[in-house]
């Protein structure tokens, strides 16, 4: 190694600001791209949770015939229906029926929540099956 310790000016240069602006712009651009890619994408899986614990997962797909599945909620049964890649709460043992009123969902990331009966239906899954099991640093 022949290079000597550089004596240099440690002042900020114009390029530093350019880099910061470029990186911030890249962040904004990628945010738009990711939002576009995710939005409107049909989910492939409905995950049903009661009181935070997963009780059921049902695959969603186009052309499915309607079928009803009942799970035991916190205070009573909740019945949800799967049809043609979408899912809705059909009947629920709760007072306000907000969950039933939410209607059909089919988009990834959407969910139906029934607070009184502590039932959550989430639509997940995408192009590829399987979710992240572990994340390391």
């Amino acid at each position, binding site marked *: *190694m*022949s*290079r*000597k*310790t*550089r*004596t*240099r000016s*440690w*002042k*900020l*240069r*114009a*390029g*530093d*600001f*350019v*880099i*910061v602006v470029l*990186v*911030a712009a*890249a*962040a*904004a651009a*990628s*945010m738009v791209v*990711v939002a576009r890619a*995710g939005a409107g994408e049909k989910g492939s899986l409905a995950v049903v949770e009661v009181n935070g614990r997963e009780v059921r997962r049902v695959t969603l797909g186009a052309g499915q015939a309607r079928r009803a599945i009942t799970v035991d909620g916190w205070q009573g049964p909740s019945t949800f229906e799967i049809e043609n890649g979408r899912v809705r709460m059909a009947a629920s043992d709760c007072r306000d029926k907000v969950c039933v009123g939410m209607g059909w969902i089919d988009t990834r990331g959407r969910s139906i929540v029934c607070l009184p009966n502590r039932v959550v239906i989430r639509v997940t899954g*995408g*192009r*590829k099956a*399987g*979710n*992240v*099991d572990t*994340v*390391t*640093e």
Partner: protein
Amino acid sequence: MAPTRRVTNLALLVSTGLVLSIIESTLPPLLPVPGAKLGLANIAAVLALYLFGPGMALEVTLLRCLVGGLLRGSVVGLFLSLSGGLASTLVMIILFLLADRLLSVVGVSVAGALTHNAAQLAAAYLLVQNAALFYYLPYLILVSVPTGLFVGFASRRVALSLEGLSLA
């Protein structure tokens, strides 16, 4: 630089990087996004680059990742830190050599932080094969601005303190 000096400086920089990453692992995470780290250990690579040149920077990064991987005992962790560390060091070296008049250590460090996060995400994708990982990309790009600035200014501070010492 005499070989003994060189080995000593290399060892000092590698252990500085290791200690910094241990210190960093005790800090709470910046964001609930995996990989969004302050990257304190990168200070060692930046200092190696600016004080001793590209060869030293590569060696410091390589050794820091390998020894760090041995300490943590995780092969996956080693793979991720090597890919992030080497990619970012290479980009910093290129910018250091090509754009020395345009960029100071701060800009180079921001570019290095960005490369580190992007390369690590790509490596993680190779491991888990799940495109959902890329949902983290915007956040990882965004945090590389403050973390890169921090590392850049910290390195500059250290380098200014070392100025006048004959290290080489």
